[in-house]
Structures are given as structure tokens and as C-alpha cells.
């Protein structure tokens, strides 16, 4: 063999130009369609189309007739103090819930991430609120803050923080505090679980290094812990933020939106207008607006998710 005759390798395979191969397309991806169509039918296309359609009509319960109303529903909605109030109340509640849940969840998760006796038990006890039924929690918080017989009043009185009955549920501000307290009580556990998952993924060696450098606990938190759990934390907060737009059960059982719609969230408003007042056009217009908000927010969440996934690969 003459090895010295080196040429760059070329596609010199002796195959006669054959008929183009019959390429079998692999069609396994079609499996995604049943799930997709199902969601489309029951949760997206139909409800969305219906909402869009109805939002341009006015409907009368009495005569069971409806007539075209143009943008009247939207205009009405944006000038309706009730709707604007529900947006304001919803945002207010969501903001405080989110802030408190995040801070509490973070501090509790940081403690639970340490090694100590009884850690597993403490962890289970602290996520138990997730196991309760939201609407029943509403009733239980009703008892805890019952006018003139509030358990919370009693405890706060003993601790000397307040003096006398607070009548929580009669006062707009206090009622909001109770609603927030209820949500915080049930969903801080969610934050704890999510943040613990983020914390447990940080390799121990980062802390060992910080220790060898005599870094203070505070600095270690800012320089190592927080940057490393940024993603799970942000994800959990965004999920909670969107879930707070759904906030309904607790409000229903605890305050029914009262006093004077001080605790009426958007979800509750849409339900009340649609099902108690049968103002379907209004409810539909309100829904469309909420959908727009959700889509923008979920777009942010999901694109973050994709970015993180790519980073992981």
C-alpha cells in the first residue's frame, strides 16, 4: 500500500445514484395532541371564545335575552368602582401575602436546612397547613377571629399587645389583615418546601470554603446562599403571585368579600357578578382582562423556566 499518497478524505464512495430513500417520518410527537386538544377545548379555546363573545353582549336574566352592547361592558368595568376596588384589593392582598410568605418561608427554610435533632418532625409539622381544605380554613379563621370571642384576641391580650376586643371582621383594614393572615398561614409552607429544595441543591463545599475564609454568617447568606437560590425563590414567588389572582375559597368562607367589599378579590368579584347578579357580559369582560394579565405573567415565568433549563443543560 502506498501510504505516502495522502489526500484529504473525500466522499468517494462507490454508490450509484440510487432512488431517493423512502424516509419514514417518526410520528410519535402526535401523542401530545390529545392532552393539548383537551386543554384547548375545556380550558382555553371554548371558555376564551365564549368570554370574548359575551363580553360584547348584555344579558338579561329576567327575559333570558341578550343584545349587542359593543364595548359597553369594558367601559362600564373600567369605570365601575366595584371592579376597580376588586383589582386594588386583590393587588394589595397579593402584595402583602407574597412579601410575608417569602420572608417567613425563607427564614424558616434556612433554619430547617441546618442539622439538628427533630429536624424531620419540625419539617413535617411546618408543612401541615398545606394538607387542610382551604374553604374549611376560612371557617376556622372565622372562629379564631370571632367577634367578641376571638382566640387571637385572647392570646394577644394575655401577651399584653392589645387591650379589649378587636372586632377583626367588622373593620375593613382588620378584615384584610385576617385574610392575609389566613393565606400566609396556609401557603408559607409552600414557600418553605420550594426554598428547602433550592437550599439542598447547594453543595456543602461552598459553606466549607466560606467557613475557612472566616466569612460571617450574614455575608455567607448574601454571597453564597441567596445567589444560589435565586431561581427557585423567584419561581416560587411568581407561582404564588399568579395563584393569588385565583384567591377565592377563603374569601368566600371568611368574609364573603365584606365588610363593604373591603376584601373582594377579582376572582370573587367575577363570581359574584356572574353567578349572583347574572351579569354575564360584565363577568366575561372582567375575565378577559384577568386572562391578559395571567398570560403576560405566565409568559415571564415560563421563559424564565426555559432559560433555567437551558442553563442546566
Amino acid at each position, binding site marked *: 500500500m502506498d501510504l505516502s499518497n495522502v489526500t484529504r478524505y473525500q466522499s468517494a464512495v462507490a454508490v450509484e445514484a440510487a432512488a431517493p430513500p423512502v424516509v419514514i417520518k417518526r410520528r410519535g410527537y402526535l401523542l*401530545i395532541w390529545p392532552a393539548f386538544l*383537551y386543554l384547548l377545548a375545556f380550558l382555553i379555546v371554548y371558555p376564551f371564545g365564549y368570554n370574548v363573545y359575551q363580553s360584547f353582549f348584555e344579558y338579561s336574566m329576567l327575559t333570558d335575552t341578550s343584545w349587542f352592547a359593543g364595548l359597553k361592558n369594558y367601559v362600564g368595568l373600567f369605570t365601575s368602582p366595584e371592579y376597580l376596588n376588586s383589582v386594588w384589593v386583590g393587588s394589595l392582598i397579593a402584595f402583602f401575602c407574597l412579601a410575608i410568605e417569602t420572608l417567613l418561608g425563607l427564614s424558616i427554610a434556612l433554619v430547617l436546612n441546618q442539622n439538628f435533632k427533630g429536624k424531620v418532625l419540625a419539617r413535617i409539622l411546618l408543612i401541615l397547613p398545606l394538607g387542610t*381544605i382551604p374553604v374549611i380554613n376560612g371557617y376556622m379563621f372565622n372562629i379564631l377571629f370571632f367577634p367578641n370571642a376571638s382566640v387571637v384576641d385572647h392570646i394577644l391580650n394575655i401577651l399584653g399587645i392589645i387591650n379589649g376586643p378587636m372586632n377583626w371582621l367588622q373593620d375593613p383594614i382588620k378584615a384584610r389583615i385576617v385574610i392575609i393572615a389566613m393565606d400566609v398561614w396556609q401557603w408559607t409552607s409552600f414557600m418553605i418546601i420550594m426554598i428547602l429544595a433550592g437550599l439542598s441543591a447547594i453543595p456543602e463545599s461552598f459553606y466549607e470554603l466560606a467557613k475557612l475564609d472566616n466569612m460571617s454568617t450574614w455575608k455567607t447568606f448574601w454571597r453564597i446562599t441567596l445567589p444560589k437560590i435565586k431561581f427557585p425563590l423567584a419561581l416560587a414567588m411568581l407561582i404564588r403571585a399568579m395563584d393569588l389572582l385565583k384567591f377565592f375559597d377563603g374569601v368566600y368562607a371568611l368574609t364573603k368579600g365584606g365588610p363593604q367589599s373591603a376584601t373582594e378579590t377579582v376572582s370573587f368579584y367575577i363570581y359574584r357578578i356572574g353567578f349572583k347578579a347574572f351579569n354575564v357580559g360584565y363577568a366575561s369582560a372582567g375575565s378577559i382582562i384577568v386572562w391578559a394579565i395571567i398570560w403576560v405573567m405566565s409568559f415571564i415565568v415560563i421563559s424564565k423556566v*426555559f432559560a433555567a433549563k437551558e442553563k442546566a443543560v
Partner: protein
Amino acid sequence: MQRVQRESRAYKLFRIVFLLFFIAVFLLPIWWMIKTSIILRVDTVVYPPQYIPKGIEFDGYIRIWKDQGLPFLYFNTIRINILAALLALLLGVPAAYAASRYDFWGKEGGFMFTILSTRFLPPATALVPLYFLYRWLGLVDSIWGLVIAYAGLNLPIVVWVMRSFIDEIPRAMEESYMLDGHSRVAAFFKIIMPLSAPGIAAMFMICNFLTWGEFLLSAVLTTTVPHQTLPIGAAQLEGDIGILWQQIAAIGVLGAIPITLIIVFFQRYLVRGFSFGILK
């Protein structure tokens, strides 16, 4: 590997106090629910409150059993949730397989985004359309109506989380099964299904967890006891004459038991469910 901890005594004390405080706060409403369900009816709302009941009765449990159709409610809740979870898995696992193994046009931005975004839609906004659709289909006040709706709530999470489970099964596994001479369908049933079985089981539990306490849809889409769920049963105990605390609490206690077992035993998977499989 266990890290050697050298913490100061003061810090250890602080930690105990900190945790005990939050455990107390977190458990207070739960204890109140348990206590309310067994305390004498006259002592339910009294001041000063009884932290430990002075007398107990099981009247609440007996009444919900006899008068409020608890067996129906309980059975319905279980039935609807299980069927909804199964339906979601039936549709979701193949979809998750496709999403994990195939590249197709519009996968991430179109299909997967749309599927996940439905997870965030407030049920309230779909309530009116669904009600009229169900009335037309004759699904109002039937357990199948709720099964279909709940499966829709579960489906986004099933697709996303199962996809992350299937992603963890090396492709080479089914590929080598196919090279052994088995068909693609056989590879799905003999390799993917058995290997993702723990994930499927966990997802089944998580689905039940997610829809167990659902209130709004079942409040609107069901009207009679034989088709209602526990949360609705509880809400109906709030009537013109007042609220039947004892019985609501009793439903609350019974309703919380299965779901609490799920969170205790499936904690590890809860994170995946909550984060759509992105965190493990």
C-alpha cells in the same frame, strides 16, 4: 455527608424558640379544627376560649354522617379525584413522552407554553362558559362533569412533571430495546412505563392533593348531595340559622387526613409538582 456542627448554645436556644413559635402558630388553626369538631356545641365560640375542651361529644361526626350525607360526600370526593387523576395521567403521560423524546415545530414556545399557562388561569374566569357548556352537554350536577374539569386542572402539571421524569430515563434505554428488535410501542410499554412507574404513582398522589379541596368549580357545577364533594358539603352547613361549626370542623378533620398522609409521604415529589418538574 454529615457536616460537623459547632453552634453556640445561644443560637441553639434561639432556634428551638423560633421553631416552637412557628410550629405553635402553624398548628393552632389545625388544633382548633380538631377541637371544634369534638367540643360541646355550646362551648364552640366562647370567651375566654377553651384551648383544651372541657367536655367532648361526637355529635358533629354523627350528624354529618346521618344528616349531611358524609358517606356520599367522602365517596364522591375520592371517586372524582381518582378518576380525574387517572384521566389526566392517561392523556398526560403520552403527551409528556412526546414532549420529552421528540422535537417538533412549536414544542417549547407553543404547545408546552399553552399547556403550562392553563395551570395559572383562575377557575373563576372559566366558570360562566363552563357552566353553560356543561348545561348544554348535560354534565351539570354529575360527577363526570367534575372529573373532566379536574382532569383539566391536573393535566398541565402531569405533562410537565412527567416530562421531567421521562427526561431522566436515558434515551439509550429505549433505543437499545428497539435495536433488540422490539417496536417503538413495545419500548414505550416495556421500558418507559415501568421505569417511570414511581413518577406516575407520585403524580397520581400529587393530582389528588391538588384537586382535593377545590371549591369554586364544584360549588357551581354540582347542586345535589349525591354529586357533591367535601368542601361543598362543608360550605352548605352555613345557613340562614347560622354556621354549624362543629360539623364543618368534623368534615375538615376527615377531609384533611388523606391529604396530610400524601404530603407526609410524598414530600419529595411535592416540590416537583409545585415547580412543574423544574426543581427536584
